[in-house]
């Protein structure tokens, strides 16, 4: 295994330093660094439009021309690498003349419609003109005119008159997103950004172009005309639309969320966001939010006061406990909240209700034993991996910004990718692909492992994959998720076990739901207690801390729903969970909710699942609550409250604490900080990560801290060269917290604490009992029961159903911007299979599984393996949800044409 030092994302490869003199000051900078960047890091801002730190320089706008002694003319600082002894002048008359000239040129055709332009007030062209420009124009001719604006996609509008042709958007689309759907057309003064007719800029990442546009040429539909920049205030937070948890600057105006901008966090998102994350904030604003508690009276959910609702919920729980004991109480969900929500609910369920029937996943993920117990990799490890193996999951659809990182690793850093999947994923163009039939991935993984061991598989794809992974040093990073909801997780687990047998394999467990990792880490899974500790291993420690823990291991989500459907669950808590939409077995989910005697919904909106709840407790959403979350790599970062919630909703964790109080247990927790401190004290994997440290950790911290000391950088950086959002926003810039005069180092005590020494992080808060040893973190033993090879039905197609970015989930359908983007249900099969069914593309078919039946439209697609059928999960009306029996290994479909 590599030394942690070499894995640290911020670890700079020590390169040769050279001396450069910029405006009379001599500084040392890494050899070969671009002059514009070297100058910026030493406090000299050279104006620019086209240059962006995360993209290749093009030298087009000519704004950054400087004088370099001994060089003829004025070279652009963005394409000039520094060399030893270079003497640079950025302030000379010649440079000033050139700057005046370029700005005058840029403005001759640029409309001065700043008062009605979204960018006005934070516009780089405005700001640069003010700082460096000539002040007035001598242009008296007619400006060029174009129709304005035109839609280049469903989310992005283009005003070509404002465009200054810097190619930031086109380069982003091509270099970063891999969706080269916008480009220049025409030439000279007629140069315009264009899409190919009929092919819009339908990229999952299109919103980034709006953020990096140096003028108001690109605007987004959701933000357009919604606010003026000077009315906005921002805080830094993490997006929780998926488990990558990109850093962002969340802005509001008049207590309404209006914008999320990407923050350039090197280890996480490098400044980029996906469109779903960027524009998902509107789900917080929607009218469908439940703003008052409700109880069921005479069959109807009716608004009531909080005490009434809490009393009713506590009553329901007490009744179930009294009637059938702790095993009849269950909690489903918790993956959409914060770590604090997860911890307090975990403590409430396991320490007060004493039930282990708790699961943050809904049968749509991986067993907690596996997810928590694999050797973990970080996102930044992708950059220097020996190779990346993507097992099953389509990152582009499920964790889009992780897809960008993997793509960049392959395209820019030369890291080979092996895509081991049932059908083509977004990474296919950059990967060596190995296909398997659904349910048979373990065999494919085993053959790759064998081929890596030296025995040629005789299969061209597998040998090519093994060869791709043989070329470099370092670890193999395996990205694994739940790729197919139409098969049990067993085959994926067996494939993971095969890959885990490689010494160099480390895993990014790519479960998608916002804070699923935090929820699992904090014990919202059967058999686990907070801090990645198994129930038995942590029994003494947590009995000491909490007073009680469940007697025995409980049921997972499918088990809970099964039990509920048989009326064995007296009280079911739906903690932001929508099993009818998310559980692979919709029939079971519906039956379970119907069968539970008493249902408590803790949620922000009414869903198909919680509509029949007996008590509805409205909670705060993202952007309305402080706390922390944990991402796909185990990185804990803060989320920040930006607006006050409408109505009376409260954070999930306070609901748990209030309910505990009604069951005669006082958690004595008043703020999110206090919860964080308790987590740091009690949950072993979180040792040392208290609220004070988290508040000052620039990029958060990767758990456990002792294993990732370099990822914890204390003290906020603030490069306040400009606050214009088009530049990469450094962490800490949006929500400046003054750096403390003397940042405390991570004390040995904290590091030791994680090693098992029961030393407290702070003196004021002693460990529960000095003599108790902190329980060890869970490690998966890799034991699997072979699921067996599913039988082949020659007349059937095997179903692959996975999540797509714009699905029929609450977050997308509740947001007006996403509604037009939600996919329509299409059954995709190999053209051979389509022909065999006897239909043409667009033809209607009837699909029958053991569980259900659907009428669908079919389309042939060579990316689908023969014998396989693909239907996206959870689409409005026609997702695959109704077809799947969660207990069967795979889902076979009979497909026949309807005439």
């Amino acid at each position, binding site marked *: 295994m590599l030394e942690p030092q070499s894995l640290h994302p911020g670890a700079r490869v020590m390169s040769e330093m050279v001396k450069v003199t910029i405006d009379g000051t001599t500084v040392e900078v890494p050899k070969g660094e671009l002059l514009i960047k070297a100058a910026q890091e030493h406090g000299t801002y050279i104006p620019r439009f086209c240059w962006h730190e995360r993209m290749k*320089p*093009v*030298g*087009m*706008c*000519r*704004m950054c*021309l400087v004088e370099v002694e001994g060089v*003829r*003319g*004025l070279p*652009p600082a963005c*394409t000039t690498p520094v060399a030893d002894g270079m003497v640079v002048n950025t302030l000379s008359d*010649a440079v000033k*003349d*050139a700057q*005046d*000239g*370029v700005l*005058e*040129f*840029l403005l*001759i*055709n640029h409309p001065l419609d700043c008062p009605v332009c979204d960018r006005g007030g934070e516009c780089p062209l405005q700001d640069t003109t003010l700082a460096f420009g000539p002040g007035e124009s*001598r*242009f008296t*001719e*007619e400006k*060029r005119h174009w129709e304005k604006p035109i839609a280049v996609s469903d989310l992005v509008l283009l005003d070509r008159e404002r465009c*200054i*042709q810097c190619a930031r958007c086109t380069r982003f689309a091509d270099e970063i997103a891999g969706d080269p759907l916008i*480009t*220049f057309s*025409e*030439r*000279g*003064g*007629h*140069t315009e950004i264009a899409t190919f007719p009929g092919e819009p800029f339908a990229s999952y990442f299109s919103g980034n172009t709006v953020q990096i546009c140096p003028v108001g040429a690109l605007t987004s539909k959701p933000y357009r005309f919604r606010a003026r920049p000077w009315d906005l205030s921002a805080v830094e937070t993490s997006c929780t639309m998926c488990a990558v948890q990109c850093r962002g600057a969340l802005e509001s105006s008049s207590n309404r969320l209006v914008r999320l901008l990407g923050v350039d966090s090197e280890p996480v998102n490098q400044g980029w966001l996906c469109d779903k994350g960027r524009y998902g904030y509107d789900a917080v604003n929607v009218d469908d939010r439940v703003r008052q508690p409700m109880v069921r009276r005479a069959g109807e959910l009716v608004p009531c006061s909080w005490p009434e609702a809490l009393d009713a919920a506590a009553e329901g729980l007490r009744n179930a406990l009294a009637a059938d004991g702790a095993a009849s109480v269950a909690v489903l969900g918790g993956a959409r909240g914060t770590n604090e929500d997860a911890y307090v609910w975990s403590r409430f369920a396991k320490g007060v209700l004493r039930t282990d029937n708790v699961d943050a996943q809904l049968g749509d993920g991986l067993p907690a034993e596996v997810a928590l117990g694999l050797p973990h990799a970080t996102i930044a490890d992708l950059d220097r991996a020996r190779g990346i193996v993507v097992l099953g999951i389509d990152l582009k659809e499920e964790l889009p910004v992780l897809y960008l990182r993997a793509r960049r690793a392959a395209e820019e850093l030369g890291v080979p990718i092996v895509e081991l999947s049932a059908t083509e994923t977004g990474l296919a163009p950059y990967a060596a692909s190995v296909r398997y039939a659904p349910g048979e991935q373990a065999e494919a993984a085993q053959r790759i492992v064998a081929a890596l061991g030296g025995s040629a598989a005789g299969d061209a794809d597998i040998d090519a994959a093994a060869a791709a992974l043989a070329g470099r040093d370092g670890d193999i990073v395996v990205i694994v998720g739940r790729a197919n909801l139409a098969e049990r997780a067993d085959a994926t687990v067996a494939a993971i076990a095969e890959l885990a047998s490689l010494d160099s394999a480390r895993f990014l467990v790519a479960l998608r739901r916002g804070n699923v990792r935090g929820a699992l880490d904090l014990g919202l899974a059967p058999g686990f207690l907070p801090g990645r500790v198994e129930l038995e291993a942590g029994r003494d420690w947590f009995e000491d801390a909490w007073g009680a823990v469940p007697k025995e291991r409980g049921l997972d989500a499918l088990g809970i729903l099964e039990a509920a459907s048989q009326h064995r669950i007296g009280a079911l808590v739906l903690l932001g969970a929508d099993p009818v939409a998310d559980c692979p077995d919709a029939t079971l989910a519906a039956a379970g909710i119907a069968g539970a005697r008493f249902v408590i919904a803790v949620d922000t909106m009414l869903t198909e699942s919680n509509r029949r709840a007996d008590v509805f407790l409205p909670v705060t959403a993202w952007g309305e609550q402080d706390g922390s979350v944990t991402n796909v790599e185990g990185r804990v970062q803060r989320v920040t409250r930006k607006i006050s919630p409408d109505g009376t909703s409260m954070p999930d964790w306070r609901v748990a604490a209030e309910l505990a109080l009604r069951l005669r247990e006082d958690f004595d927790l008043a703020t999110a900080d206090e919860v964080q401190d308790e987590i740091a004290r009690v949950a072993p994997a979180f040792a040392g990560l208290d609220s004070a440290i988290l508040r000052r950790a620039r990029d958060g911290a990767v758990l456990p801290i002792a294993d990732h000391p370099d990822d914890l950088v204390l003290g906020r950086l603030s490069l306040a060269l400009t606050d214009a959002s088009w530049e990469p926003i450094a962490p800490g810039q949006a929500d400046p917290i003054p750096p403390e005069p003397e940042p405390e180092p991570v004390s040995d005590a904290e590091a030791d604490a994680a090693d098992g020494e029961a030393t407290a992080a702070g003196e004021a808060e002693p460990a529960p009992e000095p003599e108790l040893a902190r329980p060890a973190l869970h490690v998966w033993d890799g034991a699997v029961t072979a699921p067996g090879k599913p039988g082949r039905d020659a007349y059937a197609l095997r179903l692959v159903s996975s999540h797509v970015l714009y699905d029929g989930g609450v977050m997308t359908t509740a947001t007006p911007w996403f509604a037009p983007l939600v996919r329509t249900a299409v059954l995709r099969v190999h053209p051979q299979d389509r022909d065999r069914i006897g239909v043409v593309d667009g033809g209607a078919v009837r699909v029958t599984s053991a569980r259900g039946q659907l009428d669908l439209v079919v389309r042939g697609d060579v990316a689908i393996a023969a014998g396989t059928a693909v239907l996206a999960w959870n689409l409005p009306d026609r997702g695959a949800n109704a077809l799947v029996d969660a207990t069967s290994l795979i889902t076979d479909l009979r497909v026949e044409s309807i005439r």
Partner: protein
Amino acid sequence: MTATETRLVTARLRERPQDSWTMEGFLASGGYTALRQALGMDAATIGPEVVGPSGLRGRGGAGFPAATKWSFLPPDSFPRYLVVNGDEGEPSTFKDRMLVELDPHQLIEGIAIASYAIGCNQAFVYLRGEFALGYERLTQAIKDAHAGGFLGRDIQGSGFDLEIVVHRGAGAYICGEETALLESLEGERGMPRIRPPFPAIAGLYAKPTVVNNVETLSTLPHILQMGGAKYGELGVNKSTGTRIFSLSGHVKRPGNYEVELGITFRDLIESPELGGGVPDGRKVKFFIPGGASSQWLTGSDEHLDAPLDMDFVQQTYSVMLGSGAVMVYDETTNPVLVAWRLAKFFAHESCGKCTPCREGAGWVEKVLYRMSHGQGRPNDLDLLFDVGNSISPGVVNAPFTQTTICPLGPSVVSSVASLHRYFRDEVVEMCSNRSPSIPVRAS
């Protein structure tokens, strides 16, 4: 003494107008003997020992010494490519077109010699798209050369292989700029690249690449046959050999003339063997000495008697011989109208990559249009001069200074600088008497 043509490169097409472009005609007039001669030599010596002493300079416009360009190729990096710049788009330049249409085999022979000398097995000809006849004849000539064993594998038993691909341009002037040409050849949008890296290090498909002009390569067989030193004796100073000048405008005998460098502009324009003078006894008002990108010279004796010497005219008058197009304007010409027409060309052809050229060319064109159509203002010339200064600081320099990536930007400014330098009073006078934009009626 009357100045006459010195025909080397154009000898065959003048002597055999009936079949100069065919294999038969070519072989009958000594074709491919220079290639055989070259193939008998040590390839590495051709550049430094033959082409170097000849003093051959690029005929495309910049006039860079050919052998020096070849020497920039990194020694151990293969494959490497020869790209022939046949995208002759400079207004009033029409010499390469003649060479491709009337003597394609001579070009092929030159390509083969150059490729052998630099160790290249794959050459590309980027031919201006409008040269339909040239394309037809060149592709036929390549077929015939294959059949004759002058291209393909093991050429003339020497073990040297060479293939030539002809690619037709799609109508962009900028693709005559070598890095934009390479982009276009790769299938990208024709826009110049940032240098470094220079094409010799990372050119076509990021491989070491030499880009040479059609006339440069067509000259090579003659240098081989004459010997480099002998060729170097022709011409004057560092402008050795002969060049083809495309003479146009107000002359009696417009056309291509191959002359020994060192004769004067007056010789070229007035010699009865060459231009034959200005019609109807009028005088030269001004002329453009080196293609549309160049600054102008006037009909003064000093300028007319200047020698065709690339370095002399550059150092003395800040003009260039460029692509060898000489445009003559007599005393009836309105120089502002000429300047506008040239600016219109450059504004139309600006690729749009960098700001000063994209925006500046259009601005200059709009102002010149006004000026040449009766709407000029007295300070317009100063404005243009200032705008020009933002594109090409100093304005009156050759070689150009520029805030742009490639020389197309400063080319826009050349005519403005010339107006400013030679016709300032006339232009200001003209712009002081503009007609009102709204006619004033007598009341």
